[in-house]
């Protein structure tokens, strides 16, 4: 049965279409891409996002199961807010058995399809468009709860990260926080004086065409509810918890 929940796509500005699909778990899945594309604005992304070629993150990425869902905890703290620029991003790949860390340095990641998602502090990039050579894209279902999303809506489009203009000027999101690029997965948070989770559900389409649903449950190791309800920052920031499940495997 097709999902009946209403959905609304939050498409990134200057959207690069990663692929259209209306696949369900019973449909054949076609790869979106199988060869890496050249990332534009490499010089700029290295400086703007403080990418490193001599450091590989050893941050914890732990996946457990909760019913039909995977829950992946990613230590995206990167040494704390003040030190984040000096530390590498954490790279993650989604597999049939859960999400796992990919040990790769930031600059090599710009030429690699081996990862799907990169995290540092509150920024989550997907491997495609401005962020990487693959074609991972996302659609944000602003009016559907995570549990209500049981199938991939017909005709849905996936937006890749697209946060550079044609002349490689960075496009920031609307958070008001400087240096926060307008990534395809930006709808998971807002900033009312702390990083509050929105509970938005995203569909993420990987390069092989498979789709997963995903929501970010927490950014703070403790005190996420306090942030969401009172706008006061929680403790242990950058401890991201992802709840996700395959839609097409």
């Amino acid at each position, binding site marked *: 049965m097709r999902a009946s929940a209403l959905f609304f796509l939050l498409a990134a500005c200057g959207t690069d279409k990663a692929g259209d699909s209306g696949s369900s778990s019973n449909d054949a899945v076609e790869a979106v891409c199988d060869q890496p594309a050249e990332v534009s604005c490499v*010089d700029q992304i*290295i*400086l*703007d*996002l*403080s990418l490193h*070629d*001599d450091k590989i993150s050893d941050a914890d990425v732990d996946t457990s199961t909760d019913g039909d869902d995977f829950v992946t905890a990613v230590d995206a703290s990167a040494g704390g807010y003040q030190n984040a*620029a000096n530390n590498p991003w954490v790279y993650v790949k989604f597999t049939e058995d859960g999400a796992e860390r990919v040990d790769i340095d930031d*600059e090599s990641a710009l030429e690699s399809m081996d990862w799907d998602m990169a995290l540092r502090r509150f920024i989550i990039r997907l491997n495609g468009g401005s962020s990487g050579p693959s074609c991972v894209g996302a659609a944000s279902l602003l009016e559907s709860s995570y549990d209500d999303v049981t199938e991939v809506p017909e005709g849905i489009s996936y937006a890749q990260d697209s946060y550079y203009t044609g002349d490689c000027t*960075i496009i920031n999101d609307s958070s008001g*926080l*400087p*240096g*926060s*690029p307008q990534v395809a997965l930006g709808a998971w948070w807002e900033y009312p004086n702390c990083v509050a989770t929105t509970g938005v559900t995203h569909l993420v389409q990987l390069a092989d065409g498979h789709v997963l649903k995903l929501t970010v449950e927490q950014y703070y190791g403790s005190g996420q509810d306090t942030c969401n309800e009172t706008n006061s920052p929680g403790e242990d920031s950058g401890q991201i918890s992802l709840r996700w499940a395959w839609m097409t495997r």
Partner: protein
Amino acid sequence: MIALVLLGLAHADRPDDGTAQFSFDAADVLDFVDGPAGAVRVHFSVSGPNVTLLDDGDGDGQPDYPAEVAATAEDVLAFYSSLGFLPPLSEDDLGLGKLGGSSAFDFYLVDFGGSSDGHFSADACAGDVCTGHMIIENDFVGYGYSSISEAVTVLTSHELFHAVQAAYSAGQPPWLSEGTAVWAEHQYDAEVDDFFGFCDAYLRDTGRSIDRPPAGTVTAFSYGTALFFQFLTERLGAGVGPDIQLAMEGTDEDEAMAAVVSVIKAHGSSIEEEWATFTRWNLATGPLAGEAESYPFASRVGPVTQEASGASIVDDNRFYPLAATYYSLDHDGGELGFESAEDASGLVFSLHPTGDDGKVLDPLEVWSPDGPVSLRFGDLPAARYWLVGSFPQQAEQSVKVAFCLGGPDATAACAPEVGDSGDADTGGAAPEPKGCHHIPAGHTLPAVILAWGIVAANSRRRDG
């Protein structure tokens, strides 16, 4: 930080309006003290949430802290005037009336609660020049300053320079506005630790273009660019500071570096020469300071962060415009060479020996490739050597180059493969080496030292 540029003349809120981001509370009882020259007025609370330090050690009937702020601020303004800077625009200049009760420059001492220690806030602007007021911390309780006097010196000299900048252009990018404000601190008080601390922040991240600080809130890197402006002052004279501000008039943020480049040219030099020299001065800092040409305070800052180290260096580095990358090589003695089969045009490298005490010496060789490069420095004694690589010009893109530094085995890894010639005339043999100061293979140490002496003599130019 200056961020507000208004086209109109509607003036911004002030702390005693109770509506500014950092304001006095309705429960505060306010007073003020004027500086000795009447050029500065300091507003403070004698009772209430923002009460300031009320000690009156000299018994003059005024709290010492606000009085010190007023006196120091007037001294700072007089000092900047003596350097040739314009004074901050006054309220009268923009027809705002006597904000704060007089035409004096107003300071407000409010409680930042640890979130900041002070800032210049624009009242109104005409075009891209602005007048404004200063807000600084009311008591500095819980801050890291060693004394109130140190805090007053740092805050007044730094933030008042933002007011000076606003008389030229309030639209300066953070790397320049903050860097020159920290530079100004150092001009006013050469012993202030704030300057040295921020210089260290720059020296930890020299691989980044100086005009491309990390994205995000204004970082220590932007403040640390003060070192470059101090370098220019040492090399080109004290007039470079006011000239840079003049060059900012009518200049967009993204043209700020071009304006700095034009000032360097007007002082008889070039960005290529100054930047390459800057990168070498920066090497001779911290424990490496003492022998090679560098800053008078070289031992108090640095050292630079090295990209790689070892008995040989093999790297594939992205050299950004107006940045620098450092490598250390522990050479066992014998032939030493540098090899790159790639086009390294535009880059400048220098090789520096170290003395017995580990201090870096002036460059043994400086070279500017105009294509693939194959250098042999001859037999060199066992020691630590430093390699500096930079791209000393404004450019849109970085230059990514693979290279090798070390003995014959190490350099062979970077030599063009037979049959991989970029020059059909060579028939597949290694291309003819290129470089401004190329030393043919087989040259002996005395010849290298001679070349070193020539290079060093050419680079020793320091204006008062």
